[in-house]
Structure formats: structure tokens, C-alpha cells
């Protein structure tokens, strides 16, 4: 049974009593199989019950436990302590680019508003009833959008996105990937409605294609690829509208 003593330097901040964040160090006896979240739970249960953070599933699907770990946005339930250098400490901070609510908990309001803004639901051509049965959708049609439906809303991509840091109005990677997901779904006809949001200033054109969002995504959603495809689609729209107005649908 191999245990490792690891020092965690954790950002603490209580807006009721503190004017600015500080770091607090905890020494934790870690099992080899542990993830950073296990260490946080150890601290919470045994060393300091006042530490606040979000978590639930511990299997990288609920999206609650995104944090900056040694400066990288990661899910703490999938950040294995064995992958960090021996002897070094591990620094844990809340996701960057978001206001801190308390300790490792960030304010999610902006992200939630953006999710809603892109109309992330099927807008059908004609309302379908249960009696009509299910849609036909071939595996190929499913494959078109499937990757973009895997987003767990963990917001790591917003923490990685340099553009979101500079221009907080930018709709951002996850919400744009979700837009693309519905636009590509054969059951959906809502792209014109979503275009108003996407083609606007805060939409895809804000993206400078650094690609950091896709690198940090724990679910391989590839928001950067989605945004580039949407830029092309928007450009095609523009040409159709301005150069070949008779082609407009």
C-alpha cells in the first residue's frame, strides 16, 4: 500500500470576512489511486470542514468539480495525484475568468445566461406528436453532431479561453459548441434563429482560434472545431445573402 504525503496549496476566500483571497496549505496522506478531489474530501472530513467546493459524481460526468490545478483547468475528479511530480506541492484554485463566490466555488450566472441565449433545444419545422413516432436519423446523421452533444458544462473551456478573459461578452466555447450541435441535428430547423446570436459581435467572430478550449475539454467535444465550422457557415450565409440574393431561402 503506497501512500504519498502531498501538500496542497488551496485558494481560500470568504467574502464575508476577507477582502481578498489567500492560500492555505494542507498536508494530505494520498493513496496512489487518488484524484485531487479525494484529497479535498480528506481535508474537508479530517482537517478543515470550512473548505468549500462543488462536487458530486466523482466520475467526470456531472461537471461540478472544475478547478485550476497547478494553473491548468481540470476536473478535480479526473486529476490523478500520481500524474503530478513527486515532492512538489499541488496548487488548487477556482476556475479562472469567473468571479469567486467562496473558496473554490465560482459564480456561474454568466455561463448559465449564455447557455440559455443560444436556444439549445430542437426547433422543429413542424410540431411532431407521439403518434408520428420517432424521427428517422441514420448513424451518419447522428455522427454529424454527436461529438458536440457530449459537453458536460464543466466550463474548463471558458477558463482556458484567452478571448473570454478579454471580452466577457463572448458567448464562449461550450455554448457555441452546443449551438453547433443543434444546428447539425437532422431533427432541428432552428439555425436561422440561432444565427442572430451566433453571427452577432459576441458570437463566433470573437474567437481568435487559439484552440485552448479543445485542448482542455475532458470530453473531446472540440469547441474550437465547432466555432471554425460555424464561421465558414456564417460566411457562406453572408455571400448568399449579399451576392446571390435570389438564392436566399
Amino acid at each position: 500500500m503506497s501512500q504519498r504525503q502531498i501538500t496542497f496549496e488551496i485558494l481560500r476566500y470568504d467574502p464575508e470576512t476577507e477582502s481578498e483571497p489567500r492560500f492555505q496549505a494542507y498536508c494530505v496522506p494520498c493513496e496512489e489511486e487518488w484524484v485531487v478531489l479525494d484529497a479535498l474530501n480528506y481535508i474537508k472530513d479530517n482537517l478543515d470542514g470550512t473548505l468549500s467546493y462543488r462536487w458530486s459524481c466523482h466520475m467526470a460526468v456531472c461537471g461540478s468539480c472544475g478547478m485550476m490545478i497547478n494553473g491548468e483547468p481540470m476536473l478535480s475528479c479526473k486529476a490523478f495525484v500520481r500524474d503530478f511530480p513527486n515532492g512538489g506541492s499541488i496548487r488548487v484554485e477556482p476556475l479562472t475568468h469567473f468571479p469567486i463566490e467562496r473558496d473554490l466555488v465560482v459564480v456561474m450566472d454568466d455561463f448559465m445566461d449564455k447557455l440559455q441565449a443560444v436556444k439549445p433545444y430542437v426547433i422543429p419545422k413542424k410540431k411532431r406528436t407521439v403518434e408520428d413516432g420517432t424521427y428517422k436519423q441514420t448513424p451518419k446523421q447522428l455522427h454529424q453532431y454527436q461529438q458536440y452533444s457530449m459537453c458536460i458544462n464543466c466550463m474548463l473551456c471558458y477558463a482556458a479561453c484567452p478571448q473570454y478573459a478579454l471580452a466577457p461578452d463572448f458567448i464562449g466555447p461550450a455554448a457555441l459548441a452546443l449551438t453547433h450541435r443543434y444546428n447539425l441535428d437532422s431533427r432541428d430547423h432552428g439555425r436561422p434563429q440561432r444565427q442572430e446570436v451566433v453571427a452577432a459581435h459576441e458570437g463566433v467572430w470573437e474567437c481568435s482560434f487559439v484552440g485552448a478550449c479543445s485542448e482542455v475539454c475532458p470530453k473531446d467535444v472540440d469547441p474550437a472545431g465547432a466555432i471554425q465550422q460555424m464561421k465558414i457557415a456564417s460566411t457562406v450565409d453572408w455571400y448568399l445573402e449579399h451576392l446571390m440574393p435570389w438564392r436566399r431561402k
Partner: protein
Amino acid sequence: METIESDVVIVGAGGAGLRAAIALAEADPGLRVSLLSKVYPMRSHTCAAEGGAAGVAGADDSMDLHFNDTVGGGDWLCDQDAVDFFINEAPKELTRLDHWGCPWSRDKDGRVSVRPFGGMKIKRTWYAADKTGFHLLHTLFQTSLQFESIRRFDEVFTTDLLVVDGKVQGCCAVEMRSGEMKQFLAPAVILCTGGGGRIFPFTTNGAIKTGDGMALAYRAGVPLKDMEFVQYHPTGLPATGILLTEGCRGEGGVLRNKDGYRYLQDYGMGPETPLGETVLKTMELGPRDRLSQAFWHEQQKGNTVPTKWGDCVLLDMTHLGEKKIHERLPFVQELAHAYASVDIVKEAVPIRPVVHYMMGGIHTDINAATPLPGLFAAGECACVSINGANRLGSNSLTELLVFGKRAAESAAEYVRSAAPKTDRAAADQQASAAEARVRALFERTEGAETMTAIRNAMTHTMETGAGIYRDEAMLTDTVNTLADLRSRRSGIALRDKSKVFNTEFTQLLELDNMLDVAQAVAVSALARKESRGSHQRLDYVERNDDTYLKHSMAHYQGEDAPRIDYLDVVITKSRPGVRDYSGAKS
């Protein structure tokens, strides 16, 4: 205290709560819906369900077959009128999910695919690869965003139901961001808070599954039904309890003991089926209770593989091939690789049974109504009961859709027809009392007990006394320990005095809820002197239909242990029979 008035309050925004909210919004956009959750909706534990959702789809299947699989799987403790309603609604609900954008896996011709699951005569599990719950939850959440009548309150912790003159009048909840208590007034409340697997130490359930809604209803006088029936899923990863879906076996995975022997054939589920061929309703496609019990026997015989994290058996999928695994079980592949360092394409993965689901819950009728006027419940927190003594895999995702919608319809009808008047003054008084109680809890400075010690003692005693096999002595010990722990909980003092996102405070509320729910489980289990489904007594090994073809009802008694009485099971067409999972039958 801020007061928010609405027509219907929904507590819990997972699959059932979201489905209920959408149903209310679609039925009547004039109904003001408040949707409360202690987390953001997409964090709800519905997201962790993997394998699929059951509903008759193919021409070879029938409502009768789904009925028989469900009722037999539940060891005849299901209410058969509710099962009938459920199976008839199931395909409609799964079709609606398709219309809302759920990325169901498809056959070549574009129709929705179905896969086999345990205890099924015909394959009928609709799936979205092995992330069905995740997709179902996000589809519902995203769909709900288009309705203006749904007002969401994310990260509020519901502490009390308001009950005036024997009728529900709303609830009180602490806004986690501010620590402020809010009063939600409404003539109807729907509880959709999920299960309480965290009362056990080793569970697939996320941290948030603490039985909150069950405890709320229970303390308000609604009985908890069939609480002794706790489902162990046979295939969890040993260190973490992470679930590997039944779809693994549905796609052809097999279970082996330390000698590589497919031991299920020794426990009434033989003869051995050919490797790579899925033969329905036998061997690895037997029901969860039987598979978990077989593990226990193998462990007694010393046929398990010892690991650092406990005894295991092996789930072998190596014969499925990389292509099939990648297409059908990509999440399992990722989970086994990350959390067990096993490449399932090349090696068998060690697994062991893990607490997964509570068949019991808040007593509801076929309309999702509780005996308390104005209070409804749906999903895992409720017990209708369609799951009886053992839930069939992939019935629960469908259940939260069918009964989430049903609860919404019942609540809407109740609000319209009964025109229940909210007694504002009396409700205010109750809310103030609730606020005072919560504040006292918050400000408690004296106390030698620690939350961690009491929680660990609770989970430990649940596993040792109320696990896969139970007997009088073990259960009595657990019941006594729980009574002691409940009396000690007032000795826990909070160190965290911040009002902002105080998780020590919410954990204390959760521990309170868990202790009440755990006691209902253990006391109900001690009282049921028979073996049925997931409730196996070493001292009463047979099913006893003469005495116990009944639902247990646990009634809250304050600091004392609950009072247990019984309610007849509704039997319409299927008399109790033998659960036959041998492959020798026709």
C-alpha cells in the same frame, strides 16, 4: 424573509423534476412553476445513468412481456396497476425524448436501436451509447430553457415543507449563495430529489444523493414505503464505486471468478451460455439482485479475487473486440482506463457489487400523489411501486419520465380543481419557525461530536448490518447503532460560520436526512421476516407470500424508531410465481 409565490413548486431538478416542469409548462403556460435544486440541474445524478431506458419498441416485443419481466423481476412486490400504466406510457415518453433531441443510438435504417438488459425476455432498452442518463438529463434541461413559466432557483437547499391544516402550502429553502432563508408558497409541491445511496459507504451514488426529499416527506407525516429494498448493482469499480453499466453484459460481457469460471451457472442461472452470444434472461443477463447475491456466495467460498479495495470478481469483455467496445461502451472504456488502469479491450476488469438504487421511497399512488394533500413525488425518491423488491435495469430512467409527467398532471389538476387557498398567516408562522430552527443549527457552538465520525459510523453500520444478506442479530445491531447516532447528532457543532456557500452547513442538513432515511431502511428490514428480491435474510430464507406480500410503511416517530405497518400489494393479473432465470427453460 423573501417570499416567492407560485402555483407549483418542484424540489429537485434532475430527470423527474425537469420532466415535471416541462409537462406543467406545456399543459398550461399560465401556471407559475418554481424549480428548486440544491445543485445546478445538469449536475443532478441522472447524468450518471449509463445503460438505457426501457420501453417496448420492436415488433417482437409486447406490453405483456415488459409487464411480466417487471413484475417477476420485482418478486411480485410491484403494484400491477401502476406497472400497467408505466409500460404503456414508456414508449411514448421515450419518443418525446427523441423529439426533444436525445441522441438515441440508431440502427442503419435510422430507427432507434434497442439493447438487452438483465431480466428481460426481449431486448427493449433504448440507449445513447453508454451515456443515456447524461443525454436524457441534458436534453430535458436544455428543452426546459424555452419555457418562460419555469422559474429556476439553482443551489437552494430545501429544509422544510410547509403544511397547514393537513395541506401542503409550499416549502422553505436556504439560498446557498447568501445563506438566506426563502419561503416558497404554493398549493402544490412535487418532490423529485432522487435516492439516498450515500447512507452506504460503497455506492455508485454521487455526493448529493442524501435522501433529502424522502426525509422531508417522512418528517411531514408521509410514510416511506418498502425502504428495506436496496439494490446492489453487480458491477462497480472497487476503489471508487463507479458504475460499469449493465450494458457491458447486454453487449456480451461475462462474469468470472478467480479461476476464470463463469460462476453464475452455479446459482440457478445456468447452463453456461456460449461466449459472445447474448442469451436473454439467464447467466449474465439475470437480474441484479441474483447476480449480487451470487457474488456474496462466491466470496464466502473464497472464489473471489482479493484486491486492496476489497474482494472482486472479473468482468470480461475482451471477446467483444475494440470496434464494438468503442461504439457501444466508450464511457466504460474511459472509466475503466482512468479509474482502474484497465484496458477492457485487452483484460478483464475487477468489479464488485455496489449500492446503486433504492426501490423504496415516499409512498405515492398511481397518480404520483402522496397521502398528504398537495404533495406529489416522482423518480427514485418516490415508491409507486413499479420496482417492487428489485428494479429491472433501465426501468428507472423511464420511470422518472413517466411519473415526472404524471406528477405534473396530478399537481396541475389539484391546483385547478381543489382551488386550494394558501393560508398565508399560518404558512408565515411555520416558515419563521423553520428559519429559527435552521439558525439555531447554524449557530450551535457547543458539541463534542464530529460530522465525519457520525457519518462514517452510519455508513459502516449500514454495510455490515443491512447489506446484501441480513439477519436478526446484524439488523438489531444496526438499528441500535442508528438510534444512538441519531441521539448524538445534536452534539455536532459547526465550525464554518460564513453565510456564503457554507457546505459544512449543508452537509449537516444532509446528514440529518440520511440518518432518518437509514433508520427507516434498517427498521423496515428487521421487520420483514422473509427473503424477497434484494432483501435477503439468512434467518428467513424463503419468500413468505402469506404474511409479507405487502408493502412496508415506515411512519416517522420523532426521536423514536419508526412505526412499521403494511399495505396490500395491488395484484391485477399476475399471481406470485417462481422467478426462473435458468437457461434450461423453453
